[in-house]
């Protein structure tokens, strides 16, 4: 730099940064301390540590974790299952579709590509009502329940996440040299071998990006599962469980707060482990999407 920065301005900036950080993290702190209190302590002094103890925290969590309206382990399991299966299928089918669209310059592939791009602007609200009735009718028709079932919701995520996944993957595949595929084809590789043995392994970084983007969306999504699984269905995801739980314990913060804490802990742990990848993935997705 041309001039040395004044120490005073650096200190001021650091102080501002700390104040903002305190403001941003304060709700998490409040959530944590008040999850370990009894109701009277929560209402009388929510900001102070008085009344908060680890034993009370464990007791509150124990009371919440097996509540029939929350069923933490079962909703956590459903959320994890739905998210993981959707992510695997989206990455696999998305990469397959993006590769075909990218490497075949026909009218059809162009039409499909632009339909995908245009569809990204469609809000869920405009399709949700007919979607539910269609799924209900199709489910009845073929005898496989599409609502209140894991396969049904995974199928829906495949449809709704497909457009963005193909768009981002397509942008990446364009940059993969076509010579690689020609060489493989001369060496006797069939197209599917070329894809799975040569192209797919090269896509690892961009698959990570779409997995993070789709994962954040699917894990936290509320509206789609609430429409498809319902509040009283056999399968509950974490956001649905929270909504249902709050509805049954209106303003009982000694129950709601520990439940909210349980709901965010898995995500926070994941963030602590893969902080860099998550932040980079979110940026990549925004800049390319």
């Amino acid at each position, binding site marked *: 730099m041309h001039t040395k920065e004044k120490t005073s301005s650096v200190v001021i900036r650091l102080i501002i940064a700390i104040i903002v950080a305190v403001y941003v993290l304060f709700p998490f702190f409040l959530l944590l301390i008040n999850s370990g209190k009894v109701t009277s302590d929560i209402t009388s002094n929510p900001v102070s540590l008085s009344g908060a103890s680890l034993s009370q925290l464990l007791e509150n969590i124990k009371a919440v974790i097996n509540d029939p309206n929350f069923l933490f382990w079962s909703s956590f399991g459903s959320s994890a299952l739905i998210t993981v299966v959707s992510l695997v299928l989206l990455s696999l089918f998305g990469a397959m579709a993006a590769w075909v669209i990218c490497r075949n310059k026909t009218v059809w592939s162009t039409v499909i590509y632009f339909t995908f791009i245009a569809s990204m602007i469609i809000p869920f609200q405009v399709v949700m009502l007919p979607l539910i009735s269609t799924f209900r009718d199709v489910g009845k028709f073929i005898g496989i329940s599409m609502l209140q079932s894991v396969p049904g919701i995974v199928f829906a995520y495949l449809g709704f996440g497909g457009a963005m996944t193909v768009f981002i993957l397509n942008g990446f595949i364009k940059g993969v040299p076509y010579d690689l595929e020609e060489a493989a084809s001369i060496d006797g590789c069939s197209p599917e071998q070329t894809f799975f043995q040569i192209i797919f392994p090269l896509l690892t970084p961009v698959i990570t990006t779409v997995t993070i983007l789709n994962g954040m969306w699917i894990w936290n999504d509320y509206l789609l599962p609430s429409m498809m699984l319902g509040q009283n269905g056999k399968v509950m995801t974490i956001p649905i469980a929270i909504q249902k739980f709050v509805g049954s314990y209106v303003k009982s*913060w000694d129950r709601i707060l520990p439940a909210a804490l349980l709901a965010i802990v898995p995500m926070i742990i994941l963030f602590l482990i893969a902080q860099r990848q998550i932040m980079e993935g979110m940026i990549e997705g925004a800049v390319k999407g």
Partner: protein
Amino acid sequence: MSTFSIGRKATSFICLIAGIVLTIVGLGMSIAGTGNVYRGAMLVCGIILFFIGLYLFPTLKHHRSIINFIFLFPLLFAFLVTVIIPLFLGIGYSFTDWDGIRLKGFVGFSNYARMFKQPAFLWSTLLTFLFVVFNMILVNLVAFLLALLCTSKIKGLGFFRAAYFLPNLIGGIVLGYIWQFIFSNVVTKFTGTYSMLSDTNTAFIAIIIVYIWQYAGYIMLIYITGLNTIPGDVLEASAIDGANKMQTLFNIKLPMIAPTITICTFLTLTSAFKQFDVNLALTNGKGSVQFFGNYIANGTEMLALNIYTTAVINNDYALGQAKAVLFFIILAIVSIVQVRVSNKREVEL
């Protein structure tokens, strides 16, 4: 010259035939309504067998086309069934008296006429526009200032970036309830008994505060990326030429990150417009307000929530669907205009 073994040919044909037969039987049972519980499994197995047969089909000339078809099919099929077909059905339903299950007839534009006679809907539309404008400005401003902070020379940058981004990881429902607690139990300790969420105006501000808290850290990350792409020698040259910090900011940094600004305004605009979770969890739309002489009980209800309430809670599916179609049209127009305007500005800058 035969390049394919008898075994492969036989497998292919058997799979194809078995697949077609199973699919037809499965469909036939469904149409006949026999109630056979295995009809769905038969249908699925039939389709899978058909694809295996197709994959093994003994042809060299068309193999590439077959692979293209098999590769495209799963995603495209899901996309058609979950997005495209419901979209067209939905547009159609908005002109009928559909009740979520069946429809009796077409009613023309009467659903659309009906929603404009609802003061609550008009209020909700107005509120959504206000929310979008406030958010677009405030989130971008806060995020940009944070990005400037997080690209300057201070200690612990990595920590601050991660901390500011953290709220974005959490779903709107959960953080909506955490903030409901804060507004109704913690903030009241400082303001007396008065809760921000009980008054429509302050509840609206509360939603904006929560939204900035959730979203600014994410937008900040994108601005940081944008700021980091500015070449160091440009900044150095401007410093040598004697530009002060403000001049550097307005004449160099802002013009050079114009594409980033476009992305960020687009993201904040569309996400604020579609805001649902925080709205539901924080206020559930409640708040009384006077609007052109009408009393409205859902004073903080934005469009996405209004659509949901109309259809799912009040069971007026046709009206909800018509509102959703209008919602889609507004969103499409606003996004296209935003991208056009930004692109033009980018060129000018």
